[in-house]
């Protein structure tokens, strides 16, 4: 059983860091980072076997964030786990930083694949899962897809391949795929651009066991991951219903927050909401909490720049 309270607290910290690093960068993708963070945190802090000190440990579990533009979520979780110092988060997207705008495995140990061109992560995940099986390693592979992303044809080539590849000796039951179904892509709502429905039936028809969950409820995510691990002979698919921009009222369900960074004042408001503090109680909260006070100071300084 996952420690829901602990994971929720970590996810909250990561949300704050996502806002912080995007405000510093001045560009990037808050919506999809906030929708995916509960999934990432539940995986990295509650499920996966990995070691920040040994990012190249061959038997580690792998996380492929196929929707690479949401990499601030991954960076926040990686820093929290100890892959690199938290100070480094604010170098996101700056010249020379290993924290590239989209994941680069050659600059940052712990990143498993270059993603950012949508549609490629599931195929890579199939290959890794097959390779691990062939090596006889018990490691598991997790792949997170965006809902807009699965409009890409390559995803459906991989979907067709997943339940069949490696059979019968090496079925890919070490692979779990999670759809971050936040209902919004770049230009507009997914249903307005190219509807996916019935998405569950589509994956089922391609031969995947599928469950549907609330992607912000840690216990539901955890339970689905249990089911995935218990499934033999096939990879597993989780449709996670999420809210784009989750945790920040003015970003939630707003297509315009797909790909723009919060201004410093917006970032401060966002942090306050994520921490669950009312406007009235904010000054008092800051007086007591030195960490948040420092963060807000940092964001205010950005405004003066």
């Amino acid at each position: 059983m996952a420690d829901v309270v602990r994971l929720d607290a970590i996810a909250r910290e990561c949300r704050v860091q996502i806002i912080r690093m995007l405000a510093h960068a001045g560009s990037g993708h808050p919506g999809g980072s906030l929708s995916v963070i509960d999934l990432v945190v539940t995986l990295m802090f509650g499920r996966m076997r990995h070691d920040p000190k040994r990012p190249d440990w061959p038997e580690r579990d792998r996380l492929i964030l196929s929707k690479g533009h949401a990499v601030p979520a991954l960076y926040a979780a990686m820093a929290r786990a100890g892959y690199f110092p938290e100070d480094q988060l604010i170098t996101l997207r700056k010249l020379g930083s290993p924290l590239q705008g989209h994941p680069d495995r050659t600059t940052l140990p712990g990143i498993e694949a270059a993603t950012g061109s949508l549609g490629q992560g599931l195929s890579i995940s199939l290959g890794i899962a097959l390779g691990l099986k062939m090596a006889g390693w018990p490691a598991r592979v997790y792949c997170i897809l965006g809902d807009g992303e699965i409009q890409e044809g390559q995803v459906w080539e991989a979907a067709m391949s997943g339940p069949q590849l490696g059979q019968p000796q090496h079925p890919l039951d070490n692979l779990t795929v999670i759809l971050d179904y936040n209902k919004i892509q770049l230009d507009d709502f997914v249903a307005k651009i190219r509807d996916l429905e019935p998405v569950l039936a589509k994956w089922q028809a391609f031969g995947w066991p599928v469950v549907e969950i609330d992607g912000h409820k840690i216990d539901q995510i955890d339970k689905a991951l249990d089911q995935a691990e218990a499934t033999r002979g096939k990879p597993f698919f989780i449709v996670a219903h999420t809210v784009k921009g989750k945790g920040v009222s003015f970003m939630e369900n707003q297509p315009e927050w797909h790909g723009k960074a919060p201004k410093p004042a917006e970032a401060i408001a966002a942090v306050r909401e994520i921490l669950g503090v009312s406007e009235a109680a904010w000054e008092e909260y800051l007086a007591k909490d030195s960490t948040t006070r420092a963060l807000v100071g940092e964001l205010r300084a950005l405004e003066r720049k």
Partner: protein
Amino acid sequence: MPGKATRAAFGEALLELGARDERIVTLDADLSKSTMTVAFAKKHPDRAFNLGIAEQNMIGTGAGLALAGKIPFVCSFACFLVGRFETIRISVAYTNANVKLVGTHAGIAIGEDGYSQMGLEDVACIRSLPNIAIVQPADELETKQAVAYAVEHEGPVYLRLTRQTMEPVCPPDYRFRLGQWLVLRGGRDVTLIGSGGPIGNCLEAARLLAAESISAEVVNAASIKPLDEDLLLRSAGRTGHVVTVEDHALAGGLGGAVAELLGEVMPTPLKRLGVQGFGESGDSKGLYAKHGLDPAGIAASVRKFLNR
């Protein structure tokens, strides 16, 4: 005229031309806000198709629309279009479909998003196909004319556009023609051939060099395929030194095209400036400086090349 991103000029041109020519349609792959076809789509919702994040299907559908008599503008980031090269190769090029491919967000100048979103190999790939014309306009005026030209031109065209603002460089009476370059500044010692993003920096570099008595001719090479062979050979014959400047991988771009021609027809000392290795995240100014595409970097390369 104030500066304008060439993608923005493209969006305006589409709106203008689309009102007059019913055959014009647009296809997008969830980047219509970035490729700037949104205004056209608002005006002509029945002629604008957003196919979702599915570039390969978009390109093929565009080819089909062309075969049915439409003039489709098929738009995405340059990298995602050329990422579906084999579809372009067969459905557009080999089919000889009258498709206008529009690749925006050319080069490292897009900055912070990093390599995966940068069009850096598009010219090299598309240049290898026998029948696709390649045009990279320098400013608003040239972009609008190039778009109008693409509508009139029978056959596939690739338009390469910038995300960033481009300052005007073409004179008001300028007329774009495929296969014709424009001398922006006359010179005796070296021919600087620029295209797209760094064209303004070429002019600035020429000013820096002039202060050191190096006379650089600056040429705007909007037409990358075909090249303006006459102008190139004439200018290179006079100056004896050619430098190409582009926001594209060093291999196979404008510099490669110029090298191929000069090497066969009139071997001339040549220096190619462009992007080395993969691009990366950063501010566009810093990235141009790192790759020697800023005025100081271009001037330094010219100095070294001329042994001055």
